């Protein structure tokens, strides 16, 4: 845990001094939400559309920062220092924790903004909260893993899109379904079960896969 904390603190300190990831993410997310709000001005969005646009806005916001964690290390040449100094699992979970922190900060900005600009986020509050928490857990796991997988390749952009698509799509569909249920004032039990199962499988798998791709 000390190693995980060290990787997390180091990334936070760098982010605090450079403010590259969060600013890029917040900018992308805010632009997306405002654009959606402008496009739907005066229209009454259905629950399904509200839920879909909500998760698309979150995903757009997260992408610039979260996928870059490992790519920045490889580009700067500091990845070797991490390889020599830390266990692979500590690197993965340290990066994951940093990305999850960014997710929390980003959603603190985007969720209220979405409620104000696009559509009020009403319904089952507990369901919302759990979807936000586990959905974020899972989204961060996918993006952290995919970022690590493509970091050492030359065709990063294209490969990142190809890799994340099949992993993200089922998750997004579950999250959108659950959010729609929560917007209707019901507890999204089925969706939460799906997200929880996906989270467990993916997190265990991601850590395992990462240990194999992190080494030469």
């Amino acid at each position, binding site marked *: 845990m*000390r*190693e995980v*904390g*060290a*990787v997390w*603190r*180091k990334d936070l*300190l*760098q982010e605090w*001094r*450079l403010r590259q990831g969060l600013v890029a993410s917040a900018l992308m997310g805010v632009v997306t939400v405002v654009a959606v709000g402008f496009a739907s001005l005066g229209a009454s969005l259905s629950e399904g559309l509200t839920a879909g646009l909500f998760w698309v806005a979150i995903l757009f916001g997260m992408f610039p920062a979260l996928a870059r964690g490992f790519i920045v290390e490889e580009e*700067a*040449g*500091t990845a*070797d*220092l991490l*390889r*020599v*100094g*830390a*266990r692979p699992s*500590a690197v993965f979970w340290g990066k994951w924790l940093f990305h999850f922190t960014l997710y929390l900060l980003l959603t603190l900005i985007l969720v209220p903004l979405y409620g104000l600009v696009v559509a009020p986020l009403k319904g089952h509050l507990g369901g919302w909260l759990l979807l936000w928490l586990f959905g974020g857990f899972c989204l961060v796991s996918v993006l952290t893993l995919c970022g690590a997988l493509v970091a050492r390749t030359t065709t990063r952009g294209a490969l990142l899109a190809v890799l994340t698509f099949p992993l993200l799509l089922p998750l997004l569909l579950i999250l959108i379904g659950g959010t729609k249920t929560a917007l209707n004032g019901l507890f999204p039990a089925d969706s939460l079960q799906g997200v929880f199962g996906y989270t467990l499988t993916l997190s265990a798998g991601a850590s395992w896969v990462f240990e194999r791709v992190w*080494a*030469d």
Partner: protein
Amino acid sequence: MQTGWTLTCHDLGKRFGERWVFRHIELTLSQGTVLVVRGSNGSGKSTLIRILAGLLTPTEGRVQMALAGQAFAERRAWLGWSATDGALYRELTAREHLRWWATLRDTDATDTELMAHLERFELGARADDLLRTYSTGMRQRMRLALATWGRPPLLLLDEPDAGLDARGMLLLERVIDEHRTFGIVVLATNRNESLAWGDLTLEMGA
């Protein structure tokens, strides 16, 4: 019965594509030995160091570090590594960087200990400056400070003399001499002054 640390390379070889950088390297280094690896550009000095550090997988052969004949698999426990092209976190100060490294290496370090280590590399006065403000020579010293933290039994140095002034070279010589008393040093270099520090020389590309 062997005592102390031993580094063994058995039939080591590395190929990139169709090109073999080196093959059939057999080495046994015991505690107290400084091995100088020399050779022209592209002869495989850095590749060998990276394999020993676990950053590259050899195409053939294996590397083993053992204490009193007992093999140690996890490199973190016994490895110090420094390479000229090895980057540092430029947005951290030297003190923050060393503290981060100490935590990764599972060593509880007080601020006094961190500062004493930085002072040893003549970085104490600039300990709270961001590394991006450091000169090439100072960054090289910082790499040495990280590599030697915790007195790892195996110290791998890839051109640690690049960018060092006369004072820095004296410092490097002292570091290697100290390390010789409790560990093994593998030093890749082509600088004449550094070649004299070795007990053994491995000529790459010969």
